[in-house]
Every structure is written in structure tokens, then in C-alpha cells.
């Protein structure tokens, strides 16, 4: 196992970049005996050395806005779910935001992303509108999928967001297919796919790792390792101790990073995208992160101690981002103004969704088939 490094406490380097440094000695100690599947690992304890160039303050401000937008939308959605306005399985990404935001910022318009049912953060990071997103989750006609897909099926082709998925790991070969499309057409688009630590043990992951590595597809595998698979800690079912080392069996490059730090995520995904575009094939990124809310709305979280959650709070994406802004001289007042702005925006988005009409029942029967006319040519 490589030595643990952190990019949470950042030091500017001479060339304006930031070098990830170790947070503190006790973290290293615990890292030395634990592995990336144990719940006591903190995001900052990631194993990969990575040059992390500093992002511009403007971009960081944008990222903070995005992260807050996601967070507040999630909280609004949880409240709506509690009121009974949302049914089914709604999985929020509270605590996961930086993985999506850092990655989206590192990629280009024209690139593709697929993700899991825990996909609200990816949707918004890739540019989807919160109002239409909330409407979708609520099953209203202004939802981007007219209320048919709901929380587990965020999708927006115009943003390159090609679909969240309710079946664990099913979205992974989809992204490989998008990467294959790019490869077949000789384009320089890359695809990124997000999945969880638990997803690693679906057979299709293995199949896709092999094909992507063999065909050198322009693909980024991004594991949001929050150490839980529903109510089961991943160490209980995983024989693999450090997730990011596993894909090396396929000859694939991999990194283990702090998934809660947008700059680290941005650097890692940028590097992976560059490799992909150069024809060097896929990269696997393990982003150490933590889900601060339940697995899904209504989860009573009886399966983990509250102290564990509290310990992770210090490393959560919004806190980290706020620290970065303060370090860059963005002051409390400016941050408070942003907070207010986003808060209002989400209120409006919720109002928009709540006022959106229910779909016409006749809509039920549409979108099963596209009608084609080739036969009558």
C-alpha cells in the first residue's frame, strides 16, 4: 500500500499548483493499518500522489455555488419526501458533491457521463436545471423526462448526461459503449462513469474493465467509495482491501484520491481524460468520500454510529470548499451572499416544481417506441 496523502490541507507550490500533503500523523497511522474499505478512512487519507494545480478563484466560487445548489436541492428533496410528495427510492448525494463537480469541470462539452441512482449531483454538475430536476423527482410534467424516470434516472443528453440507473453497475457498460462510439467515429470525446464501492462486485464491472482496457477505450471509471453498500459496510463483503489497486490487474492505470476535494478530483479526472484522449486507454479513479445522509430518503441509519458521521463532517465537500475560498480571500460576507442567492434559487426551483402540472395520463402510453417509416419507403 502506498503512503497516505491528503490534499485537504493545501500548500501552494512554486508554480502556482498545490501539492497534496499529509494531513496529520494519526491519520497516517490509522491508514497504515486500515484499507480503503473500512469506514474509519477519511477522504484526506488517499494513497495517490498527484500534482494538483490550483484552480482559479472564480472557478472555485462557481464550484462552491454548484455544490451548494446540489446540497440545498437535496435537502429540499428530503423535506418533500418527508411530506410524502416523493415516493419510491430517492438517494441523495449529500457528502458526495465534490466527486461530480470536480469531474464535470475537468471534462469538455461533448464528453459523456453515466452514473447511478445516486445521481442528482452528477445531473446538476453537468448542467441540468434544478427546477426541472425537482419536478422530475416529484413526477411533474416539467420534469426533464416528463416524470417517467424520477430520481433514479436523471438524464440530459444535451449536457452529455446519458443516464443514471437503478440497477447497480448497469450504467458502466453504457459508458463503455459511449467511449466505443467515440473510438469508432474517431472523435476525441471521453466518457466517465460513476459507481459505488458496492457496485464493484457486480460481474459486469469485471467484464467492462477487461474490454475497456483491452480496447483502450477513452473511458474513466470513477468509484465513489463511501464505504457502504446500502446498510452493509463494504468491508463486510469485500475481499479486496484497496479498491483502486484492483483494476491494475487489467493493466489499467488507477488512482486513489480525496473525492471530497474538488481540486483533487479535477486534477485526477483531467489527467485521466488526457490519457483517454491520447489513446492510452481507461483510468480508474477511486474517490474516497462519505455519504452524510441515509442511503435513501427514510433511512433511519441504525447501522452506523453517529460519531462516525461526525468525524467525516470535517472533510465534507462544502466545508472543504469554504476553507478554500477563505484561503483565497473570498470573505465571509461574500460567501454569505452566495449562500443567500443559492437558497433563493432553490426555493424558486421547488416552487416551480410544485406548480408544475401533473402529466396527462395519456402520456403513460408514449415513449415506448419511436415510430419509424423505413418500411414504407
Amino acid at each position: 500500500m502506498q503512503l497516505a496523502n491528503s490534499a485537504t490541507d493545501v500548500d501552494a507550490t512554486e508554480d502556482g499548483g498545490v501539492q497534496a500533503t499529509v494531513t496529520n500523523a494519526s491519520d497516517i497511522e490509522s491508514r497504515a493499518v486500515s484499507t480503503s474499505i473500512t469506514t474509519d478512512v477519511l477522504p484526506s487519507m488517499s494513497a495517490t500522489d498527484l500534482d494538483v494545480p490550483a484552480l482559479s478563484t472564480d472557478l472555485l466560487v462557481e464550484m462552491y455555488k454548484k455544490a451548494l445548489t446540489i446540497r440545498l436541492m437535496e435537502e429540499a428533496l428530503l423535506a418533500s419526501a418527508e411530506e410524502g410528495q416523493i415516493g419510491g427510492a430517492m438517494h441523495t448525494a449529500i457528502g458526495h458533491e465534490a466527486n461530480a463537480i470536480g469531474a464535470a469541470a475537468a471534462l469538455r462539452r461533448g464528453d459523456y457521463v453515466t452514473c447511478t441512482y445516486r445521481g442528482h449531483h452528477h445531473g446538476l454538475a453537468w448542467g441540468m436545471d434544478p427546477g426541472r430536476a425537482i419536478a422530475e423527482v416529484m413526477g411533474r410534467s416539467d420534469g426533464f423526462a416528463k416524470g417517467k424516470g424520477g430520481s433514479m434516472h436523471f438524464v440530459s443528453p444535451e449536457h452529455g448526461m446519458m443516464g443514471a440507473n437503478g440497477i447497480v453497475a448497469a450504467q458502466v457498460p453504457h459508458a463503455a459503449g459511449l467511449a466505443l462510439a467515440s473510438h469508432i467515429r474517431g472523435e476525441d470525446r471521453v466518457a466517465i462513469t460513476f459507481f459505488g464501492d458496492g457496485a464493484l462486485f457486480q460481474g459486469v464491472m469485471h467484464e467492462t474493465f477487461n474490454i475497456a482496457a483491452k480496447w483502450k477505450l477513452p473511458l474513466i471509471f470513477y468509484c465513489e467509495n463511501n464505504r457502504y453498500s446500502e446498510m452493509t459496510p463494504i468491508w463486510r463483503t469485500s475481499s479486496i482491501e484497496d479498491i483502486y489497486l484492483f483494476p491494475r490487474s487489467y493493466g489499467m492505470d488507477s488512482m486513489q484520491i480525496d473525492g471530497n476535494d474538488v481540486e483533487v478530483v479535477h486534477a485526477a479526472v483531467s489527467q485521466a481524460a488526457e490519457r483517454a484522449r491520447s489513446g492510452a486507454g481507461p483510468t480508474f479513479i477511486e474517490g474516497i468520500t462519505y455519504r452524510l445522509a441515509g442511503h435513501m430518503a427514510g433511512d433511519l441509519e441504525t447501522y452506523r454510529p453517529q460519531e462516525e458521521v461526525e468525524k467525516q463532517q470535517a472533510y465534507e465537500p462544502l466545508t472543504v470548499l469554504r476553507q478554500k475560498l477563505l484561503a483565497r480571500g473570498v470573505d465571509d460576507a461574500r460567501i454569505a451572499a452566495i449562500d443567500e442567492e443559492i437558497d433563493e434559487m432553490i426555493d424558486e426551483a421547488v416552487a416551480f416544481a410544485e406548480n408544475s402540472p401533473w402529466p396527462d395520463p395519456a402520456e403513460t402510453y408514449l415513449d415506448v417506441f419511436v415510430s419509424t417509416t423505413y418500411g414504407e419507403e
Partner: protein
Amino acid sequence: MRRTTYIQALNEALREEMQHDQNVFLIGEDVGHYGGLFRVTRNLLDEFGEKRVLDTPISEQAFMGMALGAATVGLRPVVELMYMDFTLVAADQIFNQIAKYQYMTGGLLNVPLVIRGQQGGGKRYGSQHSQSVDSLYAHFPGIRVVAPATPYDAKGLLKSAIRDDNPVAFLEHKMLYFTRGEAPPPDEEYLIPIGKADVKREGADLTIATFSYCLLQALEAAETLQEEHGIDCEVVDLRTVEPLDTETVWESVAKTGRLLAVHESYANCGVGAELVARAYEEAPQLLRAPARRLGMAPVSIPVSRVLEEEALPWKNDIIATVLEMERG
């Protein structure tokens, strides 16, 4: 008799069978320490230990295949699929292996296992967490399919399913979990035979043959039809979809002359079509009007409350179809 919930009935059936036969073990995601996403297996790990209540990774193909292997040497695995939609993830092991194993081995091996979990709509889980798989399972020979609608039937049939020497798909329904009904106390053992339908409401005018949550919808529809239209429906709870107890259905149709089959799986190539086809094979003379079936609309279950309601073949659709049939 005391009243209990459907979940509680299932939990008791599992506990009793695990006490009764040490070959019975549970396997699936979150079934052990957490006690199952829907709490059907709660407390069983504590009572029976880690060798008999196994928490798996999200590897449906592997643990389904493992259940087959263990069953061929006399263990009796009860496999939980968290949502029955995940049948499709393990479809090779279920339909190419488990359902066929006895036949392919010329009867040298058999596979006494239960695949259980909840299916069905009504709670806005959308396309991949709401579909009903009864017709899918019934299509493949070699696997019994049971889908009880009441706590009483659920307990008696789950115990029978576990004791059955064949693979059994035991299909629960998410809308049934918190329903209550009468059942004997935990120590009073009873088994309900697989393959026996049960007339849940007597009536003279038309037979509704159904199962799982649609039974409750059919019973409500029957009340409305009686009250508002004076149509007296007999409601037959098939309880088992494979084998189909057509005898009980034909007995009912002999009285009513009319048959409507209702289920929540897709109508197309569904159990309802099968029952209609068998009616014309086995008992055409009993039918005084064309037999009909009602299933899920040909769409993959939308999330929106309004759309989901439209797609599900529930009370209003049952009433409308019965009225159509009565009008001729």
C-alpha cells in the same frame, strides 16, 4: 386468531422453518446484520448465526448460483432478491440453471430452494424497481411460482415453499407488506399446499381470477360493482401461478359463465393470456361470454403518481373491464 402483518407472517415462517430444519439458510443483500431492506429477515441472524444468515455483496449471479449448488446436496437456501426486478440480473442462474437442473440431470439432482422478494408498483419506484415477474417465472418450466396476498396465506405458503423439493419463486408485493390479517399464533403450525387456489369472495355473475396485490384491488372492485352496478363477482385467489389451479377456476366459471384474469405483470404473454388460452382448451363450454385478461399496460412503469396509476391494472380498470364484459 390474532391479527398480524404480512411482513411479520413471513418473518415467522422463516424462523419456524429454520428451527424445523437445519438445512434451511438465508442468503442475500442486507439480510443479516440489517435484517433485510424490508425487514423480513430481522432478528434471524441473532438467532441462527452467521452460517445460516449470509450477507452477500451485490453479486446476484454468484449467490443465486451458489444457492443452486448448496441445494443439490440437500441444503434449503432461501434467497432474497431485494427487488424482484433483479431477477433479470441473475436470469441465467434462475432460468437456464435452477429451473432446468433437475431435467438436465435426468432427475439425478433436484434443487429445493426458494427465491423470494417483493415486486409490484404503487409506490413510485419506477421502471426498474416495480415490475412484476410472475409471468416471466411462469413461462419457464421447472420452477414453481407462488404469490400470496394475505398474511395467512403468505405464512402457510412460504413454509410450504421451503419444504418443497423444487425451486419456488415466492413473490411478495410491496403494497402488501404492511397489510394485516388473521393468522394462528406462531406455535400453531399450518401449511398451505402450493397449487391450490382459494375463493376469497363468492359471487354469481362473473369470475375474477387473480393473485398478489391485485386480489385486494379485485375485492374492492367487486364491492363497488355489487353496490353500484348490482354485479356479483366471485373472486378466486390463485395464490399459485405455477401450477395453476384451473380446476377451482373452472368450478367458479361453471357457476358464473364469465372469466376475467387480472395480474400486475405485463399483459402481453402474461398469466392472464395463459388462463384465457387454457379456458378455451379445457373448458370452452363453460364460457357464456369471451374470457378476458387484464394486466399491466405495455409500458415499463413510470415514476409519476399519475402515470403509474394509469399503467397499473387496478380497481378502476377491473371495474371498467367487468362492465365492458357485462355489456357484451
